[in-house]
């Protein structure tokens, strides 16, 4: 196979167009083609119907892509993994699972976005078009067997996300976040391309298989060019997966983007970038793993520690989830660092669990953000369980899953990457990861406790206009509702407030309506998280079978 790859097509004067196996590239084709069709269709219907058409169109398109990826899975099982279309793409278990994951994430995001777009009164169909094309970019990254395809996937994914971040015209924060994301993202893409150029200079190819073959057959006496190329590639990937020290954009962009977009970005961009990172590092640069493993080790440690510690300080739930996603990136890097097949499947499983946890969490944040999508202070979650018990329960489950609680996919995900790190010989990394999991558990539990222990927000906030700690103490002794006020004090300790809690308007409804489709999306996410947490074997086996082609 590799020998036939290396036989460069000798020019005979006639153009021989490579054979295209359409099944291998069908999911991204459906996403892009569907997006264009949707754009045309939505412009034909009347304005109020556009969001609905967009939602159901997107559900249909991503459902089809999901179905086709199942077909691909059986094909890979029957005929084995191969490269297709002049060796530019690869269809193996790994790429198919990533395609499935991204299709599912797109489907759930469409359900969440429906409620959001209707609530905000933002015009609809382009949102879905951009999201679909963005998802196709992530799919390309997962199936790429050429650095050029990886780069194109990265750009398709990112440029659509820049626009989606700025989608809501009425929020100033949205535009600011988009500009930050665009400038930093463009910069990191340029670094990534330079990495590709240097890698090409060192190995003579951009094709991942040919690079692997070159490195297997040749010993580079002076490998400065190659190492520089690989490290620049790592910078580009590090930016996309939001690993420290390339995480600076994450909190601002996650906070500023519309909440459904944040969930989509957190899930899909991470899935695509990690897929490409795993394939590039393990398939192509597996021979020089002793060179890149220390870098990944450092990035993992920094992401784990800074992500969990900085999340403790956040009062905005979206910022807190942003830092927690940095912490998650650190965990997934554990699997990358182990540089072995078990690490690949552990990372894949973690991505799978993380996708549903994070989209579900941001769906709930979308609902609780009220109209305007700016209401994400921690104080808003106080006493949520009393007002909306089902929503609070769903959020608590998703947060506990992110913390790695038993009976959720979060536990199995964390266990697998830690075991992979140990089997890869990086015991210190595994220990650090477990310590940060405990730290992260604190801020997830803080929100959960606030939702359940906190009083009703209108009553709790009424007697404390000044907000300094002293009045609380006085009230807790003097008030006839002593028990209730004590709870308030506990809440404020949990929130680490020294400042006044945000004033609550009387006109705000205390029970927020959950749109039906958003409810379905949240139900799906919680369902996947719990069902596969209680009954883990099918998904774990699935991830184990999703091996990389040309691993080694």
């Amino acid at each position, binding site marked *: 196979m590799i020998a036939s790859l290396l036989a460069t097509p000798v020019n005979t004067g006639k153009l021989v167009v490579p054979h295209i196996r359409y099944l291998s590239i069908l999911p991204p084709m459906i996403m*892009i083609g569907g997006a264009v069709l949707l754009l045309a269709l939505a412009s034909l219907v009347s304005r109020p119907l556009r969001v609905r058409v967009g939602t159901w169109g997107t559900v249909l398109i991503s459902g089809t892509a999901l179905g086709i990826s199942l077909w691909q899975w059986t094909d890979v099982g029957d005929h084995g993994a191969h490269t297709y279309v*002049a060796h530019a793409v690869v269809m193996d278990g790994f790429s198919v699972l990533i395609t499935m994951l991204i299709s599912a994430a797109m489907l759930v995001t469409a359900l969440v976005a429906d409620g959001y777009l209707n609530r905000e009164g933002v015009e609809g169909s*382009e949102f879905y078009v951009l999201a679909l094309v*963005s998802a196709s970019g992530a799919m390309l990254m997962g199936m790429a067997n050429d650095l050029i395809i990886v780069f*194109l996937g990265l750009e398709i994914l990112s*440029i659509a996300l820049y626009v989606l971040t700025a989608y809501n015209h009425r929020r100033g924060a949205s535009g600011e976040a988009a500009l930050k994301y665009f400038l930093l993202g463009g910069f990191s893409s340029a670094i990534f391309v330079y990495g590709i150029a240097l890698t090409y*200079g060192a190995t003579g190819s951009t094709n991942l298989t040919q690079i692997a073959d070159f490195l297997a057959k040749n010993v*580079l006496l002076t490998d400065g060019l190659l190492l520089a190329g690989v490290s620049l590639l790592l910078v580009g990937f590090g930016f996309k997966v939001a690993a420290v020290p390339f995480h600076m954009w994450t909190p601002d962009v996650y906070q500023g983007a519309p909440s459904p977009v944040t969930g989509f970005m957190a899930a899909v961009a991470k899935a695509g970038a990690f897929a490409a990172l795993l394939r590039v590092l393990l398939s192509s640069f597996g021979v020089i793993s002793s060179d890149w493993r220390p870098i990944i080790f450092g990035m993992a440690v920094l992401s784990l520690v800074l992500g969990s510690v900085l999340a403790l300080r956040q009062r905005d739930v979206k910022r807190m989830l942003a830092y927690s996603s940095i912490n998650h990136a650190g965990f997934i890097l554990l699997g990358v660092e182990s540089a072995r097949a078990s690490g690949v499947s552990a990372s894949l499983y973690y991505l799978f669990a993380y996708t549903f946890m994070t989209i579900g969490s941001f769906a709930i944040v979308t609902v609780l953000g009220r109209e305007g999508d700016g209401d994400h202070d921690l104080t808003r979650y106080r006493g949520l369980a009393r007002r909306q018990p089902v929503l609070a329960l769903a959020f608590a489950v998703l947060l506990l899953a992110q913390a790695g609680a038993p009976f959720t996919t979060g536990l199995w995900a964390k266990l697998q990457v830690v075991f992979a790190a140990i089997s890869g010989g990086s015991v210190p990394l595994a220990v650090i990861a477990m310590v940060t999991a405990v730290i992260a558990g604190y801020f997830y539990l803080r929100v959960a406790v606030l939702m359940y222990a906190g009083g009703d927000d209108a009553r709790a906030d009424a007697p404390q206009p000044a907000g300094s700690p002293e009045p609380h103490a006085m009230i807790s002794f003097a008030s006839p509702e002593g028990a209730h006020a004590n709870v308030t004090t506990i809440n404020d300790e949990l929130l680490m407030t020294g400042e006044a809690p945000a004033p609550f308007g009387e006109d705000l409804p205390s029970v927020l309506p959950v749109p039906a489709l958003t409810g379905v999306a949240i139900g799906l996410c919680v369902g996947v998280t719990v069902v596969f947490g209680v009954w883990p074997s099918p998904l774990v086996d699935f991830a184990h079978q999703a091996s990389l082609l040309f691993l080694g």
Partner: protein
Amino acid sequence: MLHTTLLLASTRPALPDILVFAASAAVILVGAVGVVTSRNPVHAALSLVMTLFGVAVLFIEQEADFLAAVQIIVYAGAIVVLFLFVIMFLGVDRSEDVEVEPLGGQRPLAYILLGITLAGILAMAATSHWVTGAHQVVGPIQGHITASSSSPSGEVAQLGKQLFTTYLFAFEATAALLVIAVVGAVVLARRPPVPQDSESERAEGKLSS
């Protein structure tokens, strides 16, 4: 001829090559510094043209005539003209106040980092050979060279063939980028629809009344 030039370039460059390289590198650097330092945005854009022109000369020196032409037409021509349009629209006379530091201490920090980076690059340049060796650099390109010397059509045909064979899928995938560019530009340029609607309704109301 192409073959020998490339080999020469990878083993020991001839004196004219060095001279051309040095001259165009100087042009590129002067232009690049000009982009960052000139206060007038139009001068900065023109300095960018200078840099791009220098890069085009480097392409010619590497016998990549097509790339040089594209570099001049697309970058120095179209893109910089677009830049100038935008600058003119935004107003040339409005100068940015660059004296106020948004982040305290970033300037000294930048100098320190610059020093470290320079020292690192110099140390690397002093201790290692960056070129991986003539065989490896020329090896994969050699197939293309023999191909181009056998067919008289030259490198434009080469590029076209590569696009429709090896890089077919990448070439097709760029279509998605164009879709995003069009849709994204429309989304970002569109005004919020609500005030427009109310305005048009008001206008209609006036007309009907």
